[in-house]
């Protein structure tokens, strides 16, 4: 069944759009989800469900936003949004964009609606068996999630966009024990499309086990300032956390960004070129149109070290005399859109990994991300690597665990003195302003100089 049979939703939304205001947009969202939690090989917890609702945004003297998942209360919501739009006293304008009418659907090789629950369970069973590849494994947790998302966006400029896409993610968590020591390895697989997202599920879960086994023998990491090499995952997290959040234009406007006055200036080494690109098919951060009906597009953020663009909504683009970049995103109907990243990555270089580390006398090689956080106004970030290795005289030596990297974004960007030719993007969720959206981040392996915090 397609979206809003008989145009029922469209009629209601038309009604709301006819209210008197400077600008109105309405977004209907319907999400069908399934989750399976397989603990130690038993898929005993399966959940499924449906949630749909409408978010209304009205602009007058401020934004008035209202939402509900009770269609009987839509009219109330519209009036609340209207009232809320009169509360402030701020000159908000929105950047001009093409008015789009479109109906888009992301192609899937294996449509989720044609896959049975048994197919999903079979996939998880195989992935779990792959994870049990060592006798040290004491416990496994596989957590599967999929969401089939349909949306209808309409605004008072006559935009009308229907969009349909599905997203899937699998987390593998493997606990290993040896000599009384306990460690965990984690791996994540995610993308947009259909059930084919999970073709490599077994490879992914097995990698979680291998990671946990390496950590069992890892030593506590040293602390201090080191030459560090980041793998593509960590490069991605660094770019996302440290640079990406600083170029989100709402942070720039709020004075919470260290690069607010740096447009057109050199802020990184000339080896650093960074893009934000929601159009990468199959990627976790993929979308057709943002939540203001602006077409998704690839944006260059940093070109050979020079800051080229911020990430915009229509409002921030107008406030900073720029052009909307199609990055206004919302978690769902119950949140207003704010400038967000999609897939953010650094461009690869020419060196091989071995060439990049060959002249490092003493350093640390860090892999995988356990997450990070940034204070964009101070330009200070922290993120944790899943595992690491000591580098001695150009060679990878013993492994280390529980190691965090922290530093000042601008210093690190300028200290990047080698970029290798690998390239990988991984998917995850990013939280900001109380909203969580799917994103991708990645790039090559890079070499820089930073503070490392270990527990030794």
């Amino acid at each position, binding site marked *: 069944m397609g979206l809003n049979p008989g145009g029922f939703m469209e009629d209601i939304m038309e009604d709301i759009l006819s209210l008197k205001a400077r600008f109105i947009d309405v977004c209907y969202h319907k999400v069908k989800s399934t989750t399976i939690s397989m603990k130690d090989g038993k898929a005993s*917890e399966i959940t499924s469900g*449906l*949630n749909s609702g409408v978010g209304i945004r009205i602009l007058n003297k*401020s934004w008035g936003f209202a939402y509900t998942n009770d269609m009987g209360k839509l009219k109330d919501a519209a009036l609340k949004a209207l009232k809320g739009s009169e509360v402030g006293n701020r000159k908000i304008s929105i950047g001009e964009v093409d008015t789009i009418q479109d109906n888009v659907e992301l192609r899937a090789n294996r449509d989720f609606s044609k896959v049975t629950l048994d197919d999903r369970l079979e996939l998880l069973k195989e992935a779990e068996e792959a994870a049990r590849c060592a006798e040290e494994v004491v416990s496994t947790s596989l957590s599967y999630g999929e969401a089939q998302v349909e949306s209808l966006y309409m605004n008072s400029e006559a935009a009308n966009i229907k969009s349909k896409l599905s997203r899937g993610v699998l987390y593998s968590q493997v606990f290993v024990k040896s000599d009384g020591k306990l460690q*965990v390895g984690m791996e994540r697989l995610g993308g947009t499309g259909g059930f084919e997202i999970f073709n490599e599920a077994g490879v992914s879960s097995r990698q979680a086990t291998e990671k946990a086994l390496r950590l069992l023998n890892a030593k506590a990491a040293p602390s201090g300032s080191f030459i560090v090499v980041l793998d593509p995952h960590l490069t991605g997290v660094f770019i996302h956390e440290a640079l990406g959040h600083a170029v989100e234009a709402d942070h720039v406007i709020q*004075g919470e960004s260290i690069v607010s006055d740096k447009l057109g200036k050199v802020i990184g080494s000339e080896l650093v070129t960074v893009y934000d690109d929601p159009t990468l098919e199959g990627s976790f951060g993929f979308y057709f149109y943002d939540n203001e009906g602006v077409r998704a597009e690839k944006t260059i953020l940093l070109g050979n070290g020079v800051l080229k663009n911020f990430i915009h909504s229509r409002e921030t683009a107008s406030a900073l005399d720029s052009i909307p970049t199609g990055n206004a995103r919302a978690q769902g109907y119950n949140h207003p859109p704010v400038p967000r990243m999609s897939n953010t990555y650094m461009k690869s270089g020419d060196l091989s990994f071995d060439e990049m580390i060959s002249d490092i006398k003493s350093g640390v090689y860090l892999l995988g991300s356990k997450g*990070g956080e*940034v204070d964009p106004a101070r330009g200070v970030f*922290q993120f944790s690597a899943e595992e690491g290795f000591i580098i001695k005289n150009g060679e990878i030596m013993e492994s280390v665990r529980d190691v965090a990297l922290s530093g000042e974004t601008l210093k690190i960007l300028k200290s990047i003195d080698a970029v290798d030719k690998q390239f990988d993007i991984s998917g995850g969720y990013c939280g900001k302003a109380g909203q969580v959206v799917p994103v991708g981040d990645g790039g090559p392996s890079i070499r820089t100089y930073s*503070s490392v915090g270990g527990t030794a």
Partner: protein
Amino acid sequence: MNIDKALGYLSDKADEAEIYFIKGNSEKIEVEGKDIRLTSAGYSRGYGIRVLKNFHLGFYYTTELSEEALNKSLDIAEVARRDENFCLPSEKNYPEVKGTYDKRIEELEIDEAKEYLSSMLHQAEDYQVRVTTAAISWGYSTTEIYNTHGVEVRSTDTDIFAYLSTVAGDIDESSTGSYYDTSRKLNLDFEDIGREASSLAKKSLHPEEIETGNYTIALKPIAVAELIGYALIPSFNADNVQRQRSILSGKKDEKLFGNLGIIDDGTLEAGLLSSRMDDEGKATEKKVLVDKGVLKEFLYDCYTAKKEGRESNGSASRGSYSSLPKVGASNFILSCKESSTIDAELVINGLIGAHTSNSITGDFSVEVSNAYLKDKPVKKAIISGNVFELIKNISAFGKDKKQFSKVVSPSIEFENIRVVG
């Protein structure tokens, strides 16, 4: 379809069934710079349907209770794997929990919230710092849980949250400060929130480098809450303990926590996580987890309790109507003999990256924010170590007890902590 009828329908087709229902309003007013940028008002509701059929679990969530939705939960029970530990509680007696509802929050209008907002913003003006963002949000919700064992319980809750983030200085040199507070009643000190956020930014101007070394540090309540929330609380989850994912597995009655006491109290008056029932309808309790440093108890829901042939201690929690209940802490209260003064050389107000802590081993390595060495702001520093070791190094326990998210704690001083400058 109403809940009674739905439960009747399910009891014919399943061994046990539960309907969880939540509905609520939430409102928000947001400031950017000096002006209100956005207001938000929402109403939502939803049902979580949980059924057990010969120990096979089915779960479906929906915004509309219909026969189709009920059947979907039953269909899932057909394919899910059997687990004999699944069960739903029966419960008749619930504790009286005070201070979790305030009519003034339910009836709070935007115009009144605007005044509270101004009193926060005025502080920023007084301190001559710029406001980056500020917000007040408040909500009112009703939760109802019904099951085929006769559970029929309802709770009405309110809460209010206020936040201010500021920048001091100019484009060449600036510093940030932020502060927030949450309450179940309309008793937040908005001026104080404004003062805290503004003074932190102002006090953090012109920071200096800190030498790497071992220091006596004091963590303020927000920093304690972040670290304890991520690095310690998961170890008390019975599901983690049973599946050997907790360092506390098999260590009951051992003295592991120095002189610290820990109580998880779902009945705490006006506690942010307080309620008369947990999220599967079991009565909440006050549980002594650690007594004078000795490990005494873990957190159980019905499932983990049945595994050990004991009773749940009312620790089931769910993120929303769309998810199954899991073990979770309520108000996690730290206690220790209070000291008259805390005079640590390094005082830390906030942490960055606490969520990257290792929840099994308790290892952490986090960046500090708004930290002061002998009252002078520190540029950047990482503190690292292990939370179980950290607790043994408590050298003073403050009197400024306050709840942030789940954790109730004062400022705590720790000796001999590794700080990387």
